[in-house]
C-alpha cells in the first residue's frame, strides 16, 4: 500500500472543512484518524484487508467542481467549491486522492450511522451483563456514541447457536456476532490457516468453522482480540473477570526470543489475561497462544515461597538475611575453579549483569546459560525459546556461543571437579547431571520460581520472581532492547531476582550500593557500549533497537580491557562525587 518512492506524492484532502495533506495510498479512514477525527468501524482493521461489509464507517465524500477550463471553481472564500456525492461512501476501502473532501459529521452521515447501528442491534441479544466483551465492546461504545437510545424492534430475534466450541481455546456465541469477518480475514491473511467462514443467508448468516476443521492454530486467540463484540471469547478468560477490574501493565512476553509486546491484565495480584500490544517493530498487533497463556505457572502448586537452607539433610524455611549469608558462606569455601554457575536466558539484563559480577567476584570461569529451542514458525514464534539470549551474549560474555560450555560443566560436576554449583532459574535434568550427582555436591544454590529436581537437592533455595513480577530489560532475537514491568507482587517471601543477586554479591564481598533495578541498568550502560546513554525508563514502552544482528559480539581481549577501564572511570567519578 505504502508509496515506494523516496518522496511520496502528497494529496490535498479536506476533512470536515479543513484541508490537510496525506501521502498517496493513505486510506480515508486512516487519514481521518491521523487528524483526530474518529470514524467508527467494525470490519476495518488496519492490519487486515478491507471488505467494507459493516457499513459503519460511512462518510460523505466529494470532489471540487471543475469549471469549463478543467480547473476547480473557487467560491466566495477563495476555496474550491465541492461537488458532494449524493450517496454516502465507506471510508475504509477508499484511498485519498487529490482534492478529495470528506464530511464525517454531517446530518446524512449521522443518520447513516444511526441506521447501521439499529440494523446491527436488531438480532443482537441484550446480554451485556453476562457478556465478557462488556467494557471493551465496540457495539456498546458506538451504540452510546452514534446509536439510538431505544429499540424499535418488536419481532422475535433470530436464534443462533450459542456456546459453540470453535477450537481448544476459542468459544463462539453466534447470536452476538455482527458478521464483520475480521476473524475470517485474520485466519486467512495472518495465520495462514483458513478455517472460518459464514454459512446461511440473510438474518441467518452465521460464523462457523469449515466442516472438519477447528480453529486450533497457534494464533487463534488473536481473533478474540480483534472481535469487536463478544462473539469470540477466550475459553480460558471466559467468565473469569470483568475487564473493567483489570489493571493493565505494559510488558513483554518472555516465552520466546521474539519478545511480543503485551498488556498484562491483573486484579489484586492475580493475572487474568495477557493481550498483545501494538508494536510494528516486533509483533504488529498479534501474539501467539503459547506465549499468551504461558502465565499459569505463577500460581502453580510447586511455587517456591520461602527461602530455605539444608539442615541435617532437610530443607527448612529461613529468613532472607540468613539464606543469603548461608549461600555466601558456602560459596566462599571454594576456589573459583571449583564453582560453576548455570544462568538462564530467561533472566533480565540486570540479573545477568549481577550474575557476571558475582562470577567475577568469586573468580568463576564455569559460567554459561542453557539454550532452549523449540519449533518456530515464520509468523512470530521463534525457535529460540529463551527471551534474552542476546542479553546473555552481550552481558555475560561467554567465550563462545551460549550453551557451548554446558557439557564441560556437566562433566566437571560429574567428575567432582566442581564442588559448588549455582543454578539460576534453570533445571539441570536435561544437562545429563543426575539427581544423585546433584545431591553429592557440597554446595548447590538454586534460585527459581518453581521447585524442581535441582531445588529439591539444593543446599540453599532462593525463591525468585517470574516475568510478571519484576521490572527489567531484555534483548529480543532481533536485537531490540525491551522492558518488562511489574504487574503483580510476588507471592509469599519470593523476592526480585536482582535483589537476591545483589545481596549475594555484597555478602560474597564485592559490590556496592545498588538500591534499585534502575541503578543496575545504569551500571550496565556505563560498562556495555551498546547500552550507552540509555536508562531503564528511556527504553520506553516500545523498546530501542540496539543490536545489528550481523555484528554479534564475540569475546575479544579488548572487551575485557574496556570493562576494566569503565569500572576504573566509574570508581574515579564516585570518588569525585563523594568529595
Amino acid at each position, binding site marked *: 500500500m505504502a508509496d515506494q518512492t523516496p518522496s511520496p506524492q502528497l494529496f490535498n484532502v479536506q476533512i470536515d472543512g479543513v484541508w490537510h495533506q496525506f501521502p498517496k495510498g493513505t486510506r480515508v479512514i486512516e487519514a481521518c484518524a491521523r487528524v483526530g477525527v474518529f470514524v467508527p468501524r467494525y470490519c476495518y482493521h488496519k492490519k487486515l484487508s478491507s471488505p467494507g461489509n459493516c457499513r459503519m464507517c460511512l462518510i460523505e465524500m466529494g470532489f471540487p467542481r471543475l469549471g469549463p477550463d478543467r480547473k476547480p471553481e473557487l467560491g466566495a472564500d477563495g476555496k474550491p467549491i465541492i461537488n458532494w456525492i449524493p450517496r454516502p461512501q465507506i471510508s475504509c476501502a477508499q484511498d485519498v486522492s487529490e482534492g478529495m473532501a470528506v464530511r464525517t459529521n454531517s446530518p446524512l452521515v449521522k443518520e447513516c450511522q444511526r441506521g447501521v447501528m439499529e440494523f446491527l442491534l436488531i438480532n443482537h441479544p*441484550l446480554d451485556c*451483563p*453476562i457478556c465478557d466483551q462488556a467494557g471493551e465492546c465496540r457495539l456498546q461504545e458506538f451504540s452510546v456514541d452514534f446509536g439510538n437510545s431505544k429499540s424499535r424492534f418488536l419481532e*422475535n430475534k433470530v436464534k443462533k447457536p450459542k*456456546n459453540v466450541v470453535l477450537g481448544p481455546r476459542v468459544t463462539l456465541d453466534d447470536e452476538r456476532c455482527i458478521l464483520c469477518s475480521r476473524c475470517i480475514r485474520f485466519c486467512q491473511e495472518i495465520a495462514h490457516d483458513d478455517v472460518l467462514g459464514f454459512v446461511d443467508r440473510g438474518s441467518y448468516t452465521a460464523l462457523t468453522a469449515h466442516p472438519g476443521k477447528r480453529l486450533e492454530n497457534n494464533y487463534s486467540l488473536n481473533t478474540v482480540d480483534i472481535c469487536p463484540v463478544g462473539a469470540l471469547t477466550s475459553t480460558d478468560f*471466559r*467468565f*473469569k473477570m*470483568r475487564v473493567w477490574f483489570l489493571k493493565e501493565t505494559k510488558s513483554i512476553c518472555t516465552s520466546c526470543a521474539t519478545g511480543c509486546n503485551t498488556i498484562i491484565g491483573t486484579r489484586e495480584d492475580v493475572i487474568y489475561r495477557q493481550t498483545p500490544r501494538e508494536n510494528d517493530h516486533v509483533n504488529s498487533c498479534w501474539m501467539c497462544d503459547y506465549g499468551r497463556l504461558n502465565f499459569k505457572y505463577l500460581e502453580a502448586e510447586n511455587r517456591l515461597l520461602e527461602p530455605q537452607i539444608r539442615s541435617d539433610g532437610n530443607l527448612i524455611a529461613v529468613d532472607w538475611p540468613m539464606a543469603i549469608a548461608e549461600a555466601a558462606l558456602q560459596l566462599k569455601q571454594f576456589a573459583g575453579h571449583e564453582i560453576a554457575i548455570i544462568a538462564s536466558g530467561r533472566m533480565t539484563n540486570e540479573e545477568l549483569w549481577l550474575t557476571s559480577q558475582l562470577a567475577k567476584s568469586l573468580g568463576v570461569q564455569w559460567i554459561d546459560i542453557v539454550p532452549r529451542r523449540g519449533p518456530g514458525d515464520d509468523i512470530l514464534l521463534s525457535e529460540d525459546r529463551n527471551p534474552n539470549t542476546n542479553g546473555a551474549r552481550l552481558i555475560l560474555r561467554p567465550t563462545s556461543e551460549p550453551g557451548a560450555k554446558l557439557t564441560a560443566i556437566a562433566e566437571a560436576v560429574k567428575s567432582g571437579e566442581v564442588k559448588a554449583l549455582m543454578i539460576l532459574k534453570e533445571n539441570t535434568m536435561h544437562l545429563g547431571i543426575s539427581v544423585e550427582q546433584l545431591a553429592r555436591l557440597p554446595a548447590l544454590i538454586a534460585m527459581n520460581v518453581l521447585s524442581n529436581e535441582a531445588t529439591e537437592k539444593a543446599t540453599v533455595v532462593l525463591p525468585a520472581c517470574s516475568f510478571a513480577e519484576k521490572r527489567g530489560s531484555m534483548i529480543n532475537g532481533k536485537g531490540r532492547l525491551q522492558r518488562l514491568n511489574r504487574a503483580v507482587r510476588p507471592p509469599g517471601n519470593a523476592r526480585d531476582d536482582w535483589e537476591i543477586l545483589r545481596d549475594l554479591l555484597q555478602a560474597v564481598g564485592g559490590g556496592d550500593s545498588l538500591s534499585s533495578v534502575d541503578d543496575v541498568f545504569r551500571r550496565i550502560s556505563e560498562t556495555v557500549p551498546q547500552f550507552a546513554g540509555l536508562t531503564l525508563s528511556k527504553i520506553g514502552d516500545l523498546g530501542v533497537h540496539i543490536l545489528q544482528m550481523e555484528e554479534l559480539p564475540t569475546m575479544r581481549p579488548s572487551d575485557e580491557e574496556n570493562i576494566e577501564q569503565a569500572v576504573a572511570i566509574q570508581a574515579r567519578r564516585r570518588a569525585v562525587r563523594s568529595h
Partner: protein
Amino acid sequence: MAITVPRPKLNWRERSYLPAIVAGLAITFKHFKNMLLGRTKVTMQYPEQKWDSSLPDHYRGAPALVQDEDGRVRCVACQLCEFICPPRAIKIIPGEIPSADRFAKVEKYPEAFDIDMIRCIFCGMCEEVCPEQAIFLRKDYAITGFTRADMVHHKEKLLEIGGVMHGVVLKWNEKK
C-alpha cells in the same frame, strides 16, 4: 479584597451580655423542666419500640439477592455492583451454568456472592446499578455478629434476606 463584616452597635445593656445569658439560661431551664415533667417526648425507646411497621418503602437496609418466580437467582454475576460499591464490600466469584441446566441460556451465575456488612454503607448504589434487578436493599437494619466473619453475608444469607421478588422485568424471555 478583605471584606469587613459590619458589626451591630450594642447598647450598654447588650454589651454587658447579662440579659442574653439570663435569657439563655431561661431557655435551657425551660427545656429541662419540660423534660423533667414529661411534657417533651422525642426519644424512642429503641429495643422496646421500633420503627419497623412505619419504615418507608424507600428505606435502605441490608442489601440482599432476590429470586424470581421461577426460583432462579436473578444475579448473573456481572460484577457491576462490585465495581460501583464505594466501600468495596462486595465480592463475587462468577460461575458458568452447565448446559444441561434449565437456565443454561443465562450462562453465568454467582458461584459466591459475599457482602461484608462491616464495610457496607447502605448507600444503595448496588441496587441502582444492577442491570438484572437482582439486588435490593431490604428493611433489615440490625445486622449483628460476634466476629468479623459473622458479619460477612454469604450468598445463602443474602438470598434468605432477599426472598422472592414478584413483578420484576423478565429479561430472559424469548423476545429479547
